[in-house]
């Protein structure tokens, strides 16, 4: 109940009128000119985001990756951002060789001896540190066109990547339609520890020089607001890779053609060009408070890999500061045409061969979620993102030979990833 005596109405009208006149009588020129300059002297709209990724593949790789991102917004709509990330990777990755039924011993490039127990997929231990720096500059041109240019540099023990990208987005039909066109180039250098081996050889070092890999990509995207609640987007991209595309430490087993016992192993070899294409459709539907994201992506490349990705996310807003966003993702890919479980002793060597599981037939299911919250009276937003990924391939391919039929050639791998993020402005 309002117990205070209501103010006399005429006083209200007069007060409003006086206040409105005070506002309107400032010369127009002053307003227009003072606006941008004086606003610049006020608080700097800087923002810092900190995230930490903890990633683990059961019995294989684990990654710890802290990332710091700094964003500076400028008065005229421009923004500059820089991101620094550090990855600490440790663990073991499958070498590509097949299990033998016996203990297998190999000597690595650095002279270390690696032993795999009988019947398990051989893996090679590794540890690496990678740091990455990304920067981008976004600038509006008038009211409907925005350009972004970016740069990227990353380096680890045996790999360096340098890239640049550019993108232009324009809003049409009263901002209901947005068209984005972009492209980028990357110049990567691979310098395998110990030198580069010849493809499909028994690790013969043929060069100690570094190897180049270049990537160029283009993308086009269209997004359209269909109704007050629904937005649809379609994107297409194509990328051309050229140069040293082989994984320097991956191996292919050579098997006894009848018993299936691995006799030796050879380095893998991949073609030196690859064109990757994808198209993706996505939809965002806004319920009263909640959001449903869904997307489908089809990917194909000149190595013969085809993949389908279906993504579903539902964001439930508990109140203005807390939300939960469960995620479900299905991914399936077919094998590259030079993917092989193992080569047979005595057969002529193919032009290309790889047993890298990432080039084989693969299915993954991802279940996860994001929980976002903000504490009252404490600045900034927190997010916790957790995902469990179950990856499986073809455990018993029909063409497995001899002892290989007894082993699980593509044991399902459980991968977990947890990301903790904190974002605040200052």
């Amino acid at each position, binding site marked *: 109940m309002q117990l205070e005596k209501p103010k006399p*109405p005429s006083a209200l009208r007069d007060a409003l009128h006086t206040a409105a006149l005070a506002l309107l009588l400032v010369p127009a020129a002053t307003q227009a000119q003072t606006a941008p300059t004086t606003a610049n002297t006020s608080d700097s709209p800087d923002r810092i985001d900190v995230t930490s990724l903890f990633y683990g593949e059961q019995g294989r790789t684990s990654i710890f990756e802290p990332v710091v991102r700094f964003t500076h917004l400028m008065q005229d709509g421009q923004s500059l951002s820089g991101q620094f990330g550090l990855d600490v990777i440790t663990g073991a990755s499958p070498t590509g060789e097949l299990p033998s039924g016996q203990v297998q011993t190999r000597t690595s490039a650095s002279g270390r001896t690696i032993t795999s127990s009988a019947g398990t997929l051989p893996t090679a231990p590794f540890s690496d540190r990678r740091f990455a720096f990304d920067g981008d500059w976004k600038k509006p041109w008038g009211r409907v066109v925005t350009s972004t240019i970016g740069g990227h540099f990353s380096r680890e023990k045996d790999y360096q990547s340098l890239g640049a990208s550019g993108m232009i987005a324009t809003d049409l039909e009263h901002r209901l339609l947005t068209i984005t066109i972009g492209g980028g180039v990357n110049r990567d250098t691979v310098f395998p520890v110990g030198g580069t081996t010849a493809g499909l050889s028994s690790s013969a070092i043929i060069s100690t020089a570094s190897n180049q890999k270049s990537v160029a990509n283009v993308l086009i995207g269209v997004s359209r607001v269909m109704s007050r609640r629904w937005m649809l987007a379609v994107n297409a991209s194509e990328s051309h890779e050229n140069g040293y595309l082989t994984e320097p430490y991956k191996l292919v087993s050579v098997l006894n053609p009848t018993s299936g016992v691995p006799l030796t192993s050879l380095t893998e070899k991949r073609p030196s060009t690859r064109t990757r294409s994808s198209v993706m459709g996505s939809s965002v539907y806004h319920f009263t408070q909640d959001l449903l994201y869904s997307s489908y992506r089809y990917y194909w490349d000149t190595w013969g890999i085809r993949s389908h990705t279906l993504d579903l996310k539902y964001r439930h807003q508990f109140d203005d500061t807390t939300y939960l966003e469960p995620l479900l993702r299905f991914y399936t890919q077919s094998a590259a045409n030079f993917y092989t479980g193992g080569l047979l002793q005595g057969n002529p060597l193919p032009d290309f061969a790889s047993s890298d599981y990432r080039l084989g037939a693969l299915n993954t299911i991802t279940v996860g979620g994001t929980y976002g919250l903000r504490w009252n009276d404490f600045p900034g937003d927190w997010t916790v993102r957790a995902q469990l990924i179950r990856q499986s391939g073809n455990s018993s391919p029909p063409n497995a030979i001899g002892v290989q039929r007894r082993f699980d050639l593509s044991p399902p791998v459980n991968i977990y990833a947890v990301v903790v993020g904190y974002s605040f402005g*200052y």
Partner: protein
Amino acid sequence: MASPCSVLVETDDRAEAAELLAIAEEEARRIELKFSRYRRDNLVYRINHSEGRPIEVDEETALLIDYATTCYAMSDGMFDITSGVLRRAWTFDGSTRVPSRHSVQRLLKHVGWSRVQWSNPTLTLPAGMEIDFGGIGKEYAVDRAATMIAQRTRSSFVVNFGGDLFVRGVRRGDRTWGVGIDDPTRTGESALYRLDATTGGIATSGDARRFVVYRGKRLGHILNPKTGWPVEDAPRSVTVAGRTCLEAGTLSTLAYLQGPRARTYLEELAVQFWIV
């Protein structure tokens, strides 16, 4: 301004008309860019993301804040530029969905101009609170554009930004500009009233298209900053004529917030009004 905008000038000089239109357009865009809460590159965004830190504002923003402060004081807190956060709880889509009491209560903690420290030119907004000039920005833009046009022409004109307008002068032959007031159920199709406007502002508050239905009652999109709920039993639309568009707009909003008492309220104010 997210709505159709027009400028009518009674002149035989086409170039003059084009120039005046360009002035109005530029001014409208400038104000929209500067005060829109939908942009991430303006002062309003920085104020709303200041997390409790003091922000120094420019002279124009300071004057608008002063105006809003006057409105807050004169309306016993019914006109509050910090009430925009309440919109997060509501979606006025014509459905019957209303937010939970809990979510509205939580948002109400972040509403209240009296909790803001304003000492020209420094504004300190407690973390979690937001300001929004949406309730006065369009009317302000109308008045500014009209002021600028008036400095350049002696012709009679109308500046109309989405139904909030300012009229100056009588047309040739002592005719007036006719302004129609919409039938809210048939926006843009039929006018219920026709007013003869001379110099001054005209503005309308109403729920023409954005509403929810709750327990059989239609609730419009204008929220009461004290309860966090739409005003019940409010008129469909309230149109007020004032000396400026800002004055007219503020009065029509305040009257609308009175709900069933809108008519009495405006009668006491002794202003020209039309209620549908």
